[in-house]
């Protein structure tokens, strides 16, 4: 019985600490991390876009070599890759929106 009460107390304490921490980090970090956060999103968008195209082009190149259909598959997969890059960025943007809550 005592054990259970003790664990309940610890849980309560844990919750309180977490709430306080959220309050503190939420208010103090917002100002300073805005630029860093923006830079990260920028880098992420660039990397996502480019990696989509690069992977698409790579797949196209390899398939071309395998099927000996140069340059048609390369062109097609380059477009698919671009679409995939945009899809990645779109999903990321949607996730960010969801995190911040709809404004």
């Amino acid at each position, binding site marked *: 019985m005592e054990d259970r009460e003790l664990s309940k107390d610890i849980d309560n304490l844990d919750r309180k600490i977490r709430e306080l921490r959220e309050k503190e980090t939420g208010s103090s970090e917002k100002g300073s991390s805005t630029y860093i956060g923006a830079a*990260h999103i920028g*880098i*992420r968008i660039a*990397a*996502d876009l*480019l*990696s*989509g195209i*690069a*992977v*698409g082009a790579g*797949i196209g190149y390899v398939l071309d070599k395998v099927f000996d259909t140069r340059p048609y598959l390369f062109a097609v*997969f380059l477009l*698919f*890759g671009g*679409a*995939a*890059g945009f*899809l*990645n960025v779109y999903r990321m943007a949607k996730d960010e929106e969801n995190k911040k809550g709809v404004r």
Partner: protein
Amino acid sequence: MSNPMEQFNIKPLIPIEAKGYDISFTNSSLFMVLAVVVISLLFGLCLRKRTIIPGKAQAFAEMIYDFIHNLLRENVGPEGLKYFSFIFSLFLFVAVGNVLGLFPYAFTFTSHVAAVGTLSLIALLFNISVGIKKKKWGYIRTFMPKGIPWALAPLVMPIETISLLSKPFSLTVRLVANMTVGHIMLKIIAGFIVGLGVLGAVPLLFDSCIIVFELFIALLQAFIYTVLSCIYLSDAIHSH
């Protein structure tokens, strides 16, 4: 001024060749081994005396553990805790690799696409196998989101496939770019310190600030790398 790209050169320390392939033990491998040794030593020493009320060293080790534990629980959910060991190792390896690279004369293996890319590929294969194990044939549905007419399948499936395959690539590029850029910047500014003589105090001050910032970036990038691996893992587990 010495070449700022020189620090990224891979030099074989113990040349080994097997069947025409060069599998030498390089400075990159040395620092990977070093990273593993540092991690093992850190946790071995910190957890030498295990008590219910942790001392400072034990609290430090538990803090890292808790940090990743919470990360997994928030990003993947309770079912993700099964894969804790994988994510934990990934985080420690990248974080310690980044930080080790900041020491003078050290080599940063996380600045090489080959090293980080392989890690990302392992993460990708891990995620795909988790997804297949969980959903069996239903995993194919990952490439065909709900509410899309079957007529569009030949268009959507390649795009979704490339989207999935490009994730580790973008993950790699981001970590590598961040580490490379920071180290080049440090090196170039360090070159001015010697070149400017007395005035070199200015770039010295600058470099001291940057190295603190780099330390922050090193840990942050390891954190981001881990978070994104978690998110991909969660996609593999939860997607419909």
